[in-house]
């Protein structure tokens, strides 16, 4: 598959703070790529670097297989941090400026304003907008001219539940057309609902990347017991999905890398000649899982 964005070992330092540390990523055409991480993990800094707003201290990146240029940026629609527009201009005039910069006509302006439900307010000045409307105009501006890549930095930040649902639906709809989307968020739930691929960042370093279904799979844990805990503990290490084991009071807690069903697990031990006296499945919330991911990598 065609590589849209390739980042090679970029780093950015602000004084003593290492905002991004030796980060490499690859985004392929048609992916909905999530960058997940807590506040201050380097998500916005990374996006700012690949959009030429700030200079990396080291490392490089390529867009569409070529060195980054203003022409490559014209193929990308972006929402970074706050919505940035001229407060005294109407949305239509603000979008006309964007269209002129991107060397495109004004035909698409009405469509993106309708998509973001701003068409009725197209001639009111930007400064009279509520935050949610401003954020929606930023999305409208990013969608202008159907870009090859859409970059969204916390796109639902500050929106009400209705607005969040609307924007997510819009993103999925655009992803459905085959547009590559890169989306940064600290909301695990958002990434899970929207993305096909994800990279998890913490303190500027990449912890994992891969398919959402793999990286964020709820690897259930099981509480197990048998008459012979020792051989149980030994046997479980040969299970293909085994991740870790924590001994408890007469039981052991087993963590798996991916989803394992209880029947299969029972059969596994039976084949090893071990009879379980206790088997209970523990489900963890997504948030718990995310925090564990971060914790394990401190």
């Amino acid at each position, binding site marked *: 598959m065609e590589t849209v964005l390739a980042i090679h070992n970029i780093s950015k330092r602000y004084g003593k703070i290492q905002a991004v540390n030796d980060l490499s990523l690859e985004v392929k055409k048609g992916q909905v790529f999530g960058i997940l991480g807590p506040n201050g993990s380097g998500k916005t800094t990374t996006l*700012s670097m690949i*959009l*030429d*707003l*700030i*200079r990396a201290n080291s490392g490089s990146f390529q867009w569409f297989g070529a060195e980054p240029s*203003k*022409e490559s*940026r*014209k193929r*990308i629609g*972006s929402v*970074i941090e*706050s919505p*940035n*527009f*001229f*407060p*005294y*201009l*109407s949305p239509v*005039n603000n979008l*006309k*400026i*964007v269209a*002129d*910069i*991107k*060397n495109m006509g004004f035909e698409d302006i009405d469509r993106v304003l309708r998509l973001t439900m701003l068409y009725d307010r197209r001639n009111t000045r930007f400064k009279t907008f509520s935050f949610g409307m401003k954020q929606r105009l930023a999305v409208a*501006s990013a969608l202008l001219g159907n870009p090859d890549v859409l970059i969204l930095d916390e796109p639902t930040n500050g929106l009400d539940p209705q607005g969040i649902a609307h924007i997510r639906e819009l993103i999925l709809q655009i992803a459905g057309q085959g547009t590559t989307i890169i989306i940064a968020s600290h909301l695990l739930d958002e990434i899970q609902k929207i993305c096909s691929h994800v990279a998890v960042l913490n303190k500027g370093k990449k912890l994992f990347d891969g398919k959402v279904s793999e990286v964020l799979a709820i690897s259930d844990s099981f509480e197990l017991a048998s008459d012979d805990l020792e051989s149980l503990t030994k046997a479980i290490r040969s299970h293909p999905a085994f991740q870790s084991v924590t001994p408890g009071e007469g039981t052991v807690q087993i963590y798996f890398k991916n989803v394992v069903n209880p029947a299969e697990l029972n059969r596994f031990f039976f084949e090893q000649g071990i009879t379980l006296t206790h088997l209970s499945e523990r489900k963890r919330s997504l948030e718990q899982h995310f925090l564990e991911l971060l914790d394990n990598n401190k």
Partner: protein
Amino acid sequence: MIRLLKIEFRKILTYKIFWILAGLYFLFLTLGLLMAEFMINKQVDSINSRMPIPLPHVTIYFFPWIWQNMTFFATIRYVLIFPAIIILILITNEFTFKTIRQNVINGMSKAEILSSKLLLILIISVIMTVLLTLGTLIIGAAHTSELTLGLALEKSVFVIGFFVTMLTYQVYALFFGFLLRNTGLSIALFTLYNFIVEPILYYFLKSPLVFENKISAYLPVNAVLRITEYPSIQVLKTFMGITLQNSVTLSSCLLALGYAGAMIGTVYWVMVKKDL
């Protein structure tokens, strides 16, 4: 180039503050130019009341010297500061609204951002030069009795001086705007430098004991103001011992343009180096 200008015009077309300042500038400039002769003669009258031999009233609106007089009065600090402040506001707005970041994200290069502001400065300078030329021709024709084309255009080279002054002075403002990035701060420091810092430097550097009145002429703002110097008024010549210029010199234009070029280079260098 047309595209960059279109973008700039869209930014100012419905911007009230721009039109208010532009209107005030135009008003002050017109009133100032029309009342200059009256104001000078009021001064002459007050001098005459204390003098045994009365001085004659001056006339400044006759060809060919009207070119020098008009371009002098149109380029005094207090008038030039208007277009400079407009430029400062338009440039620092881009940083305040973060639209400069958005423009880069959307596909403008830093060189294009700088060029679009320079183009705006160029257009403002051209428009003002055309207006001043037309105004001068009309007023001059009304005040000159034996009008010939040769006489009317004899000193029109001062218009080129006016154009260079407008252009370079606004580039100075661009320099402050791009480096300081903050509207209030850049207006304050630009005004401070123009009206206080450089005049003080000028005063000290011109002391004959130190540099024989040479270096002060090369201070950046003074270099711009010197392109079109004192008006051609006999009173000044006689009583203040000022040597009047006869024409706009190429060297004075080149000095100001040199400063402006260095500032544009610095701004571009900083833009490339510094994060937006």
